[in-house]
């Protein structure tokens, strides 16, 4: 089995390709270039400007520090810089998707966090002998939060929940690995309401 190929496939499935952001940026960039081109051609052929002639535009750029209101210039610059920060973050951030790779199988397996959460919750519910909906599991990229709501009169220890969850997670052989956080909620009263 060609492992490097499958590893690449797994990486592609667990990380965002950033296609949407890149296409949006490219479309805006191309539209701006087309607009500037149209203005230049209209100026060259002696037609009136659509918005501003190239020369006036450049002069306005040169006089930007004196433009009124000053606050608008500062705000505009700050917004542009913030947008730039977002783009740089998108460019160098990991872009992890809410998925985990499962190993221990002959084929490469990638699983959505939602599927993992629901499977782990079901397994815990069975082991602890609880009603459906009494175990809530949230799966993050590095951690798993388990909230257990015992039935009235039932006593469940946090360490036991954590151990059971960790045991179940170990069997999935997830990568990246996750840490278990367990929480015991107050037991519900007979009608299922909070006490």
């Amino acid at each position, binding site marked *: 089995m*060609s492992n490097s*190929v*499958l590893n*690449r*496939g*797994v990486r*592609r*499935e667990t990380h965002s*390709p*950033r*296609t949407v*952001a*890149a296409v949006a*940026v*490219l*479309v805006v960039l*191309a539209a701006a*270039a*087309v607009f*500037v*081109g149209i203005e230049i051609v209209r100026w*060259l052929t002696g037609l009136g400007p659509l918005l501003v002639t190239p020369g006036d535009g*450049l*002069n306005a750029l*040169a*006089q*930007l*520090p004196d433009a009124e209101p*000053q606050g608008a*210039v*500062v705000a*505009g*610059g*700050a917004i*542009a*810089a913030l*947008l*730039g*920060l*977002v*783009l*740089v973050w998108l*460019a*160098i951030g990991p872009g992890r998707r809410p998925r985990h790779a*499962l190993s221990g*199988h*002959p*084929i*490469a397996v*990638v*699983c*959505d*966090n939602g*599927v993992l959460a*629901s*499977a782990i*919750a*079901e*397994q815990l519910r069975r082991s602890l002998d609880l009603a459906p909906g009494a175990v809530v599991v949230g799966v993050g990229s590095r951690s798993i939060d388990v909230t257990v709501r015992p039935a009235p009169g039932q006593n469940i220890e946090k360490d036991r929940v954590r151990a059971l969850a960790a045991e179940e997670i170990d069997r*999935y052989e997830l990568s990246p690995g996750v840490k278990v956080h367990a929480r015991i909620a107050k037991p519900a009263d007979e009608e299922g309401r909070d006490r």
Partner: protein
Amino acid sequence: MNATHRGVNRTVLLVVGVVLIAGGAVAAAAALVPDIASVWRSATESSVRWMRDAATASRLTEATPVSWFAIAVLAALLAIVVVAVIIVARLGGGRSSTVLREEARDGAQGAVTIGHGFAADALTGALANRSEILSSRVAARKVRGVDVLHVKVTPRQRTSPRDVAELVGQLADNLAVLTGRETPMLLSIRSGIRSRVAASESRVR
């Protein structure tokens, strides 16, 4: 999973992001700090003057405002648009129509190709019988020149992903027996609207 060149996407974002940060920060600083404002003014005014001179000096004839400089600017703008279009047009792809191909050998046997449809039908057909699998899709992909089968499965809620992986792994083995060669397989277990809407596995078995 497709053959989109992710490095290109990230490079585009990085370059435009850095330009925006630099431009935005300098413009805001120029509006606030008088020293930076004077630097901004002298720099932009001298470059505007240089552009005017260049445009005047490189005129095609005395009678028109059309200059080689203007043509160069237009060409640069066109290049930006063309590069953007090329990058967008090359997104995606990487689909393959064959799962495996046996080249012609000596003797009467010619080349044998097993198409994507055959493997897809075999796998989705086998998965359709399983009550815990809500839907499945199979695509053949080319990753680094190797054909990979990508199976996407949406199981019912509360189904263990290990069971799904085992099931699909078995099907992969069966397919290998059928075709005489192992095909690399990638399984994606998805949660979707369907899995949220559909009832979970019935408690009576």
